[in-house]
């Protein structure tokens, strides 16, 4: 195997049902219902959430797929970039808020 990540493998995702079809079918049915339908959130909003999550988990397959699906749901690069900033800000904030623990540690030793 030349690379762990091959872009063509994304199109083979369905083959994950090869040895356990029932579980794969359940997953894809739930996945499509959760991400690709109009509901209380619009389909576009769901795709933008998916794009943000894709960047948080840093999954190349997901980033590729959600970049396309955001465009095909009518989003533009400005909206998509804002979604990535939301994900990045929350992720950065999660690190920064732990600075309070650092402050607690400093207090504890009188520093």
């Amino acid at each position, binding site marked *: 195997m030349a690379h762990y990540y091959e872009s063509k493998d994304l199109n083979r995702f369905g083959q994950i049902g090869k040895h356990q079809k029932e579980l794969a079918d359940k997953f894809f049915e739930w996945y499509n219902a959760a991400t690709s339908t109009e509901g209380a959130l*619009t*389909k*576009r909003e769901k795709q933008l959430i998916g794009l943000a999550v894709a960047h948080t988990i840093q999954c190349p397959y997901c980033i590729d797929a959600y970049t*396309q699906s955001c*465009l*095909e*749901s*009518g989003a*533009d*690069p*400005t909206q998509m970039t804002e979604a990535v900033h939301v994900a990045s800000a929350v992720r950065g904030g999660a690190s920064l808020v732990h600075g309070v623990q650092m402050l607690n540690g400093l207090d504890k030793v009188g520093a």
Partner: protein
Amino acid sequence: MNLKVIDNLSVEELTDVSSEATSLPRFNFNKHIKEAELDLKPLSIETLQINVGKLCNQACLHCHVDAGPKRTEAMDRRTAEKIVEILATHPEIKTLDITGGAPELNDQFDWMVVEARKLGKHILVRHNLTVQFDGNPVTGESKEYLPEFFAEHQCEVICSLPYYAEYFTDKQRGRGVFQKSIDGLKRLNDLGYGKEGTGLTLNLVYNPVGAFLPAAQASLEADYKRELGEKFGILFNNLYTITNMPIHRFKRDLVRRGGYEEYMTKLVNAFNPTAAERIMCRTMVSVNYDGTLSDCDFNQMQDRPLEKGAPQSIFDWDTESILNRRIVFVDHCFGCTAGAGSSCGGTTS
């Protein structure tokens, strides 16, 4: 006039990247319709779509005509007169759909509109908005009169606006096009276009800025109406979403980026039999600037006339033979049958 770098290409460079001439993969549309048990015969000739020439004040990235300011192909008076004659003698043809290039730049345009209206035909004009301000790129002739001309002759105006914001529109159509388009739409609105009760119809066209399929038409139309209304006070009737056809300039760009096969696979995988049944070539005929007849504007741009045996030119018009023809289907036809379908009037299913 704001043009993209692509306008510097020569006519030779603007020719199609054909699958036959390269090692590009082929896709079999006829096999798909056979497997779907579809019999896509012509149904009628309700619309005569005429492409009056390739001259345009813009040179857009997606353009399947490869139109631009340096193109010289143009319909002459003899062909225009024959078209009016066919309209006059064929009441079953209800609509004259005029496209280009920027069709208003053709010398015969105004005359044909006037004559077709005298015959009571419905006229669609594929108007790029910016020609109102840019005028004729060769002669410098002003085209500022167009909104009033359209209104006077009750033309339905269909305008390309790839997005309701500047970035996507200018990326596809050239720097400054979005603002000019907004100004052009305001002039049409001022005359009553897009407003209820005026009878003046203004429709917009969205096509993706890149190698992806259009979003749902109804959803995008709501976005366009909200955004253009709130930000610019613009009104319009309908939004049509159109899939980018993998021919000419757009195909060349796909090939250059290494994405042609992926885009075609996307179209093939999205094949929709319902959309295929309503494919536009079943109810129209396309006429080239020189009078050549084709099944659609896309076939016309690939120099594919009606099938052998059917009339090849408007000068050989024979309604029965045209209706009995077999439509020429090729790879790019997947563009009209993907997803919700695509036609010059938007989605088809």
